[in-house]
């Protein structure tokens, strides 16, 4: 049901029945290694190119989610996925092997919540019984496309972020079992916000206004205040973006307790890992939500969370042509 300007309320409470989360060697040394289902100790994952390894990450996560939910691919109506590689080939190639009818999504690093919002909408209105949705990224494949060669010795500034190698996939189904499972209650679809920043090594700063805009709109549309949630988690703003977003919200009159505002890019790695401002990438919010955060919810740590995945809608071409970075953020609220 549409509520307010740009929010959906899912009154039938679509359930996140099971999730699959895969990651690479750098994530295995991170903070949340225990929350991954599959961890690879090699960035190549037994393949001959990083792009193929990227596809494997997504495939494995999807198969893990289906296996845990004891659902066959044939019984899954749709697969909604996206990533950062040109023409989202890792997702499309994974869809080829999964043989599930497929929507390819591109929302940069906000793809995870774009997929979860759409999947919840479909299930809520009986458009499907089972929908698989996910997002993924591979550090070396993404760096290759957006930056310099991986082995190039360029110095990254402290505002830069580290692309997560990982995939997070969830199976969204109708609410029918008595088991206590996390379910989605509402979603706010963000609009593209461009505040004129053009530095591709400072994505957090560029994305913060988009995150703040979506969070504000979410509370306005649903007539809520921040105390409604135990936790508000942004996708990959990193250290600088998170602080900027909190500052922006404060300026707009929305005071959020800083301890309740987390960021997936800051949760995933340890302080010792050389990630500058934090983690990023389409796989960042997907792995942290579908792994760590849902596990914490099942343990009873949090009852209601709002996940705001942020995406920078740039390409290497637009950066070289000196265009600024348009950004987007989508929010989905999850309860248990």
């Amino acid at each position: 049901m549409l509520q307010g300007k740009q929010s959906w309320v899912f009154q039938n409470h679509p359930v996140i029945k099971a999730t699959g989360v895969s990651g690479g060697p750098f994530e295995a040394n991170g903070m949340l290694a225990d929350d991954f289902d599959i961890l690879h100790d090699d960035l190549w994952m037994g393949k001959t190119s990083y792009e193929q390894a990227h596809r494997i990450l997504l495939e494995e996560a999807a198969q893990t989610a289906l296996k845990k939910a004891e659902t066959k691919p044939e019984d899954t109506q749709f697969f909604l996925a996206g990533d950062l590689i040109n023409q989202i080939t890792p997702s499309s190639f994974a869809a080829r092997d999964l043989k599930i009818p497929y929507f390819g999504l591109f929302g940069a690093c906000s793809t995870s919540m774009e997929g979860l919002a759409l999947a919840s909408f479909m299930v809520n209105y009986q458009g499907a019984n089972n929908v698989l949705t996910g997002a993924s990224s591979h550090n070396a494949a993404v760096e290759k496309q957006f930056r310099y060669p991986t082995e190039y010795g360029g110095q990254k500034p402290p505002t830069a972020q580290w692309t997560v190698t990982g995939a997070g996939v969830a199976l969204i189904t109708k609410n029918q079992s008595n088991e206590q499972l996390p379910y989605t209650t509402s979603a706010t679809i963000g609009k593209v916000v461009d505040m004129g920043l053009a530095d591709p090594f400072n994505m957090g700063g560029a994305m913060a206004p988009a995150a703040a805009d979506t969070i504000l709109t979410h509370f306005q549309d649903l007539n809520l205040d921040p105390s409604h949630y135990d936790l508000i988690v942004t996708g990959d703003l990193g250290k600088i973006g998170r602080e900027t977003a909190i500052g922006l919200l404060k300026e707009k009159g929305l005071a959020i307790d800083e301890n309740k505002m987390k960021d997936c890019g800051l949760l995933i790695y340890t302080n010792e890992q050389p990630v500058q401002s934090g983690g990023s990438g389409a796989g960042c919010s997907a792995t942290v939500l579908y792994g760590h955060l849902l596990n914490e919810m099942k343990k009873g740590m949090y009852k209601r969370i709002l996940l705001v995945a942020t995406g920078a809608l740039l390409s290497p071409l637009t950066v070289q042509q000196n265009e600024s970075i348009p950004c987007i953020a989508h929010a989905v609220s999850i309860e248990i």
Partner: protein
Amino acid sequence: MADSKKKNKTPEQQQYEKFEQKYETKRPVLKNCIKAFFVGGFICMIGQLISYFYIYFFHFTEQTSSNPTTATVIFLSMLLTGFGIYDRLGQFAGAGSAVPVSGFGNSIISAAIEHRTEGFVLGVGGNIFKLAGSVILFGVFSAFVVALIKTIFIMMTGGF
């Protein structure tokens, strides 16, 4: 160009730019310069030692030893790139490891490794000078301009 960029920005965007800068972590410029000075100097010292090695053991002169020395330094930096060490050194040293000729070697071999999966001709061949290409182009061009200035100067002053 920074000015023309600023002109295209709305007042709201300019205001945000100022607001955001308060939260930005600045590059530690002085620390970076010191690190670059020592690492760059150390690389050059190794180059100097290699140069002496060629002079004392292979009968090169001070002028002719620079060619084999450059080749050796580039070879070493290629090995370090292949073993995944040079990019870490680059993050630490910045310009210190980028400016010496070893940085040139790193830019070539890293592009070659990166595009190996796209084949030898279009992958490695087409991309190997992706980063180094502009160094070669503008290096050769600026050498030409400097040589031209020198030639004109000599012609006008009669070699004075």
